[in-house]
């Protein structure tokens, strides 16, 4: 990426940057400045870049979507339907800007939760030691852009040995057309802590815009986190997301990510098991139709011994939609006794639907267990016959099997109201498919 090709999209954002107000902390300003420096030497990735070979974002280059201004018109009743009844704490961001009015914080005594600005002075040292440490921007122009435009950030610090039973809802709402928003999250699990959070991207109407998010998660020794990520953007939107996770000794990270929306979405999930006996369970589902493209790139990096990772990624692709999965698993020389499994299963519901799936195993240790498999196909004729023999019509049988294919992932979401919502979404999308 030495060649520099200026594009309208980047140019436009670069120009608007200089006018932005600075944060009160010098390290943060430095981080932002070096990020913008990096952006100014870059171009948008194209299909010639190995990491983007299946995902063409050239149309983005032609869009001059400025950084989103805050929208204060939104009222609580406009977003009532988006609240999760199990969540006591919710942070709401509108076009990337924090809204204190729409947010609800109950557990502030046990949990440090809120927008970045509230913690900048009181928790400067902690923030400096985590911010930008996991989602490095020196190989991603989008992570760099997000860092350069960093202003608000959903922050959760779970103190030592604190268990938060109810999920925390981080709600990112898009309301404006033709803008770029840069949502950001930082989740810090101190030793022995336990938290569940839902990172939820929604749109109030069909519109073209760009969401460029970065999430960083750091789990200390024996900390647990369950991360549910729902991408239900407008089907005209671009959703570009980087999530980086660092797992210390004996920590446990479980993630379920569901991609339903966006014209083009790209989710990079990078997990480093930086100490012994860390565990992660990564489940993903993309359910797309029409001309949507959903690209998931994951990298699970086993650095130390006795780590465990289990990954299942599924795609249901209808019409002319296109799903991409690239699942890299690295087992470094010292990461003996690693136990890793990966499965990529893909269901094509139409002749024009397309899936590119690529397991990528890089194993440098010799005493490890790594299993992986990938399947792409249509519904199984024997399965359809079984259901027909119980009286279901062929259409009902196909619908049920398609639903089941997605429900297997959705069932792993530990928040029942969200699970029900998504089951209904999958039901609606699979029952009326044209087959």
């Amino acid at each position, binding site marked *: 990426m030495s060649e520099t090709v200026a594009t309208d999209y980047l140019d436009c954002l670069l120009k608007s940057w200089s006018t932005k107000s600075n944060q009160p902390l010098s390290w943060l300003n430095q981080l932002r400045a070096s990020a913008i420096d990096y952006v100014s030497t870059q171009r948008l990735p194209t299909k010639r870049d190995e990491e983007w070979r299946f995902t063409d974002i050239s149309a983005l280059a032609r869009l001059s979507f400025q950084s989103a201004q805050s929208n204060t018109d939104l009222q609580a009743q406009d977003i009532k339907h988006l609240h999760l009844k199990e969540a006591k704490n919710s942070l709401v961001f509108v076009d990337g800007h924090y809204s204190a009015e729409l947010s609800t914080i109950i557990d502030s005594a046990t949990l440090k939760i809120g927008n970045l600005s509230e913690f900048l002075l009181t928790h400067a040292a902690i923030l400096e030691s985590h911010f930008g440490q996991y989602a490095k921007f020196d190989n991603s122009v989008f992570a760099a852009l997000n860092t350069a435009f960093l202003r608000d950030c959903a922050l959760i610090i779970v103190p030592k040995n604190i268990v938060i039973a109810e999920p925390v809802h981080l709600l990112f709402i898009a309301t404006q057309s033709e803008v770029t928003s840069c949502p950001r999250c930082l989740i810090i699990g101190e030793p022995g802590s336990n938290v569940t959070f839902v990172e939820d991207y929604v749109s109030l109407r069909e519109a073209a815009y760009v969401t460029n998010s970065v999430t960083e998660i750091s789990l200390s020794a024996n900390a647990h986190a369950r991360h549910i990520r729902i991408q239900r953007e407008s089907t005209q939107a671009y959703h570009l997301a980087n999530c980086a996770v660092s797992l210390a000794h004996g920590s446990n990270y479980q993630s379920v990510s569901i991609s339903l929306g966006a014209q083009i979405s790209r989710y990079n999930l990078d997990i480093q098991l930086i100490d012994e006996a860390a565990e992660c369970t990564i489940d993903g589902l993309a359910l797309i139709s029409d001309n949507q493209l959903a690209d998931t790139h994951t990298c699970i990096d086993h650095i130390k011994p006795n780590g465990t990772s289990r990954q299942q990624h599924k795609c249901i692709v209808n019409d002319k939609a296109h799903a991409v999965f690239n699942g890299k698993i690295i087992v470094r020389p010292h990461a003996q006794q690693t136990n890793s499994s990966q499965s990529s299963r893909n269901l094509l519901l139409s002749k024009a639907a397309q899936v590119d799936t690529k397991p990528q195993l890089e194993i440098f240790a010799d005493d490890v267990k790594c299993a992986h498999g990938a399947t792409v196909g249509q519904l199984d004729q024997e399965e359809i016959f079984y259901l*027909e*023999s119980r009286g279901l019509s062929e259409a009902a049988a196909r619908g049920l099997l398609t639903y089941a294919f997605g429900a297997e992932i959705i*069932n792993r979401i530990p928040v029942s109201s969200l699970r029900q919502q998504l089951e209904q979404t999958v039901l609606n999308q699979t029952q009326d498919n044209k087959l």
Partner: protein
Amino acid sequence: MIVNNSKTLLSVEGLRASINGTEILKGIDLTVKSGEIHAIMGLNGSGKSTLAKVLAGHSAYEITGGTIRFEDKDLLGLAPEERARSGLFLAFQYPIEIPGVANTQFLRLAYNTIQAQRGKEELDPLEFDDFVREKMKLLDMNPDFLDRSVNEGFSGGEKKRNEILQMALLEPKLSILDEMDSGLDIDALKTVANGVNQITNKDNATILVTHYQRLLDYVVPDFVHIMQSGSIVMTGGKELALELETRGYDWVTANKQSIAGAIA
């Protein structure tokens, strides 16, 4: 049981079927009346499982000749789901697993589909729960199986019980049980057989497709048919199964040849 003057449920005449151009069924004749239990025995590859699937309407098989009547209907003109709704049931040798769908959801969907067809009342989840738990007692099944995904992680015996549970729920007129005994230990076999015996009555009929005689100790057939190379080569009472058990399938081959020789 053989009931005098009972009505004919199934009438198969000269049935021929092939798959990918290879003929598997080469002229099957079979009549089943209500109240009766028939056993179809044969070695692997004799065509007995194909017959079960063809009766249920599997689309992979091409019917090249003959007729099948089910009560007053031409079965070959019906889609698999229409056959099921008319009262035909196939218990699978290898029931499929459906991860993501709770067994109770699936059972209720199948039950309500059949009920609607019969013009009977459908059950809501709570009503169905009571109903299905009662039926599960017949098969000594743990109610935990309701909340698990359909057949996922079930042992061979648990899958077979789940099949017979469906038979109990759907109350078919004709049940075809394909290799009900395969993979079952003796206790599971007795439980499953006991379930089948409680479901059978003078108004329905059952066809047991099996390789071995041992199932027939527990579900006693009125008729035993032996299949070879796509035809029924011998028909008798339950004693035929015992004779086959002692003498083996070679005896059938030799016997058939001697009969053929005698005719020639």
